[in-house]
């Protein structure tokens, strides 16, 4: 079955430090992969997506993610974290059944310390 694993429930980084959030997926075919960010009580904002082509994808707010098929991973990175990046981050894979169905990971909560 398709699934997404985010091994870190929460991560704390210092402002200005680099960030990497891990995501592993299980999917039989070529996956469509996404990262979403959610601030407390808010909706889901799409950071970036991967469908095919260049395995390093750029997103909004300075985020990027790299698709590694050999490791079944799609880790999210940012070179320098800002306090406003504190939020919950969800990795997701789209399951194709003739229509999209998004399967989300459990999320990683990012705390940013001054």
């Amino acid at each position, binding site marked *: 079955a398709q699934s997404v694993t985010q091994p870190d429930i929460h991560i704390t980084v210092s402002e200005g430090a680099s960030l990497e959030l891990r995501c592993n997926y299980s999917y039989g075919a070529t996956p*469509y992969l*996404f990262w979403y960010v959610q601030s407390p*009580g*808010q*909706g*889901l904002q*799409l950071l970036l*997506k991967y*469908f095919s082509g260049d395995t390093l994808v750029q997103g909004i707010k300075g985020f990027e993610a790299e698709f590694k098929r050999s490791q079944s991973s799609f880790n999210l990175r940012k070179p320098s974290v800002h306090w406003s990046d504190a939020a919950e981050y*969800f990795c*997701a894979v*789209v399951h*194709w*059944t*003739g*229509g*999209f*169905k*998004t*399967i*989300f*990971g*459990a*999320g990683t909560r990012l705390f940013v310390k001054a």
Partner: protein
Amino acid sequence: EPEVTQTPSHQVTQMGQEVILRCVPISNHLYFYWYRQILGQKVEFLVSFYNNEISEKSEIFDDQFSVERPDGSNFTLKIRSTKLEDSAMYFCASWAPSGGAKTRSTDTQYFGPGTRLTVL
């Protein structure tokens, strides 16, 4: 940028009452969805809807739930008799394959801002 809208943003109801959550998907989209997020948990798929019928539903989507597209713009989720455990954020989403064909595409599923349902 097109967007999915949802009303109300927050709904409070008594246990056992019926609630209807409303969504206006993006106008030219063909597939519509509801997802649920219990506080502090991940977002879970509930149901997908295409061509005026349910195309897929999860085990969460039991007989207490129903969906409808009553007109050309709205998409609703009804919970007939709410339970405490129905308290969650409910997200509507829509999607359309490019060119109108049912093929994989580079389009993205667009999510609404959510309706927070509180069952007392």
